[in-house]
């Protein structure tokens, strides 16, 4: 009885050996590209003095949500500086940005594909289930095998872990577009590409943005785990504090993660609804110009106008 065993693990190992051996050029390329991207972003975030970055973040905050959020952002980021975690936080932010951008760039096309074709959807769905339920630490093993210790395996594991909601919500958003409007597009002779660009994507945008928000949030949580494989930054601090049972370091690094998370979440969520102060400002400017021009000609045609 005990003798019987299905050696799934060994098969996976054989597979990985084979892949590392024959596709090493590919992994080398990915490693170079990701490392280059990370270092560039990291340089941009770390080299300026902290108040420049806080100023930029403040601008983003006020454009996305307004004055209250600006105040919260400045206080939070200053706290990170005060805890002496600024550089680590910027490293983490760079990891999150690179990983999320790549994850989003991969997940949205996949989501579109899944929405367009039932066959693709039935293949992609179980893969996503697999990626979402597999314990996150497990991704670190192949990432380590292929890319060696450093930021790159952290980024790769983060991308794989964080992609799923991007794909799912893109598919959901596109499938949720009113079929009559899509039908209207084709009834007037629009090509599938035009329908996608002019109807499906714009109307699915709020859902897709919710997916992007989720991707970024998951990236942040995974980046910390990636500290285990040498991705450095706040993740490494947390791993150190864990091994030393250092509550001071642990709470400070943890708090820095929380502050980053809240900032990223609120900014992307505001972009998703499309009701940011900046877009309202633009809309106001836009509507003023033609409205004032057409005031003379605007005769009330139907009095029962419903203003929403």
């Amino acid at each position, binding site marked *: 009885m005990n003798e019987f065993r299905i050696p799934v693990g060994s098969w996976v190992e054989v597979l990985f050996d084979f892949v590392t051996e024959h596709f090493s050029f590919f992994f080398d390329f990915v490693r170079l590209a990701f490392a280059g991207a990370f270092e560039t972003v990291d340089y941009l975030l770390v080299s300026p003095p902290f108040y420049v970055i806080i100023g930029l973040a403040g601008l983003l905050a006020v454009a996305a949500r307004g004055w209250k959020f600006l105040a919260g952002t400045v206080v939070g980021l200053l706290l990170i500086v005060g805890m002496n975690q600024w550089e680590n936080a910027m490293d983490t932010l760079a990891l999150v940005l690179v990983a999320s951008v790549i994850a989003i760039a991969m997940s949205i096309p996949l989501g579109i594909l899944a929405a367009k074709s039932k066959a693709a959807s039935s293949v992609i769905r179980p893969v996503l289930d697999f990626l979402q339920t597999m314990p996150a630490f497990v991704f670190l093993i192949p990432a380590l095998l292929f890319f060696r210790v450093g930021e790159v395996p952290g980024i790769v594991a983060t991308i794989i872990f964080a992609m799923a909601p991007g794909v799912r919500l893109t598919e959901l958003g596109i499938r949720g577009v009113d079929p009559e409007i899509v039908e*209207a597009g084709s009834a007037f*002779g629009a090509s599938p590409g035009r329908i996608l660009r002019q*109807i499906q994507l*714009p109307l699915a945008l709020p859902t897709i943005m919710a997916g992007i928000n989720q991707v970024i949030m998951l990236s942040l949580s995974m980046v910390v785990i990636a500290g285990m494989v040498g991705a450095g930054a706040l993740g490494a601090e947390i791993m150190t504090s864990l091994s030393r049972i250092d509550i001071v370091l642990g709470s400070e690094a943890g708090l820095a993660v929380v502050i980053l998370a809240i900032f990223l979440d609120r900014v992307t969520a505001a972009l998703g609804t499309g009701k940011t102060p900046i877009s309202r400002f633009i809309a106001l400017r836009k509507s003023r110009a033609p409205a004032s021009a057409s005031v003379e000609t*605007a005769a009330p045609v139907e009095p029962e*106008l419903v203003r929403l």
Partner: protein
Amino acid sequence: MTESIPLQETIAVKADHLYKAFGRRPHEIVKKLKAGKSRAEISSHGVAAVIDASFEVKKGEIFVVMGLSGSGKSTLIRMLNGLWDTTSGTVSVGGTDITDVSAKELRDVRRKSISMVFQHFALLPHRTVIDNVAYGLEIQGMGRTERLAKARTIIDLVGLAGWADNLPSELSGGMQQRVGLGRALAADTDVLLMDEAFSALDPLIRREMQEQLIELQAALGKTIIFITHDLNEAMFLGDRIAVMRDGRIVQIGTPEEILTDPANDYVAQFVQDVDRARVLTAASVMEPVRAVITKTAGPRAALRTMRDLQTSVTFVLNRDRSFAGIVRDRDVLKLVKRGETDLRAIIRDDATAVLPETVLVDLVEPSVESELPIAVVDEKNRLLGVIPRVTLLAAIGNVTTNTGPLPVVMPPATISVSQIAEILGDTALEGVEA
């Protein structure tokens, strides 16, 4: 009836034995249906949405497809522009068979020949009214300034001047559908498909839109295929109506044909609630004129006619058979007594004359105001028939007209027969009658 513009006898859209089945093997379902199985018998294999639909829509015609939900009308209209492909049968639009063309050619047909208005408007919510109206032109590849200029004229045409830069969500339902209609009109296709276009609107707005559609159609001469579940709407708009039931077209005909000669019990049951007064025309209910004389016939002939028919009134025609008016028995009697022979002096014009295409609802008022039958005359004023009050009531109430002898439908005689006979006898020597 609508102001029927002369139909050019060319076919705009032709459907030839169309079938549409949903299920695992739609072609097998169609094969079974063609072999004579009923819709219920194949229900275990799938759903037959449209079964053997054939019709031709003439250029410039409003063709209404009427049926309850589930009768297949929405499926049918979507096959006409290829949104759904047919399981069997062919559709041709402007002479082009669209059932057997590539996706690109089909898009071309949709851009140039056939546009559509949707039940829930299907406007692009993130675009302004003018950009929505210009959407078809944008797809056709027209430049921005040119298409916006054209869209602006269409916006004025559908009564939305001043709203061009608003978003659809800022408009009421009726106005949103004007945008939908404008979008279809701007594309400048010959054929317009309208899928329950007014069903989501309030009754008052719906009526207004229906009237406006007829005006636009008369002005622009578009071919319109209109889907509705509302029989009154079908009767009001349609030059011809196809009634659908369970996927089949059960009758195609003009509103009057459908109303007066329903093909089966289903149609008959369906039309019994329709507002007959707005559909039936004077021509379809009028009765032959019996009490009629020519102007030159003289008073004695008039009196004799009235005596024979037991009425107090007779219609008078000119020599060219055009309608001159009526004479009453008392006036004629006086004339005869005075020995005069010219009827002209006593002809009255208090009888109402209407054209044959007048709908019955417009006859109610004249019929109330005068006990005289209403005269139906053609454009050359020739008397075609009469509509007594009884006939009008019977037609509106859908009572079979077996009104019997004429005295019932004409004002009864006011002078007794013996009196007339006496007068006629007294003056017999003078009378030279036709």
